[in-house]
């Protein structure tokens, strides 16, 4: 019984594996780029109030006390009912990091690197 070296079906076989490789590559690249999207995280009294994407212009009301805005990827405290208004006067923060704090209201606005799922061990899910 002679063994055949090559058959047409082989092309499909090899092609399938090669495509799988490319597919995985694309998947990984997408997940990697997701890992580096910075977002705004708002903490109230050390508890996470919410996380917001910097790419969307929006106005966020934090409880009864403060209002912050995201505009063109920059975060600013628009209004706050605290007496010193330090937070309102703090320079805007953007994707490069930084934080705006309103101590009297215990509000912290800071930039975090978004992490898609967190543990890299779950990337291949």
């Amino acid at each position, binding site marked *: *019984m002679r*063994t*055949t*070296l*090559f*058959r047409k*079906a*082989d*092309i499909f*076989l*090899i092609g399938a*594996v*090669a495509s*799988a*490789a*490319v597919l*995985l*590559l694309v998947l*990984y690249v997408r997940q990697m780029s997701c890992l580096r999207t910075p977002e705004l995280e708002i903490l109230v009294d050390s508890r996470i109030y919410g996380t917001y994407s910097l790419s969307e212009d929006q106005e966020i009301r934090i409880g009864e006390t403060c209002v912050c805005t995201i505009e063109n990827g920059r975060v600013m405290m628009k209004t706050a009912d605290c007496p010193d208004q330090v937070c309102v006067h703090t320079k805007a923060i953007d994707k490069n990091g930084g934080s705006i704090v309103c101590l009297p209201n215990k509000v912290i606005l800071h930039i975090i690197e978004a992490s898609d799922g967190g543990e*890299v*061990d779950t*990337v*291949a899910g």
Partner: protein
Amino acid sequence: MGRWIRLPDKKIRKLAFLGLFAAAAILIGYVEAMIPVSLAVPGIKLGLCNIVVLLLIEFYSWREALAVSVVRILAIGFLFGNLFSIAYALSGSLFSIAVMTLLKKTGKFGILGISSVGGAAHNTGQVVMACLILKGFPWQLYLPVLLLTGLATGLVTGMTAYLTGSRLRGKVSPERQTDS
């Protein structure tokens, strides 16, 4: 061409040939151990020993292929490697042998196809084991590269096995199990 020694008992003949295959596999493994591929996943191997595995699957069955592979892995592992490389090699070979045997059973593929996918499977098995033992690093990210590399080395392995096999046919023990 030398004369082939005719041993009276078929089993002894087969055993002798398997010993030769094992020796060949160890030799290949020795050469392979000198090629530094550990730049990527540490302890990973090229998978050249699939030449012997292919020949064994062709002339015997997956059982002989597995047996000789285990012998080779332990020998090379203790001589040149460490426990990790043994683990990787075992999982890689196991998966590779399984895939190649299944593909061969369908009867639809040629040696090049089987061996290239076998090479890719070999690397996949190694990566999977790396993910399991060396936690804390996403080894699976190497998979795309290793799949393609595996296909490439598999092609080389397959071609070599084909050329070798066509010369060995009829000389190796006639005890062939085509359907294991």
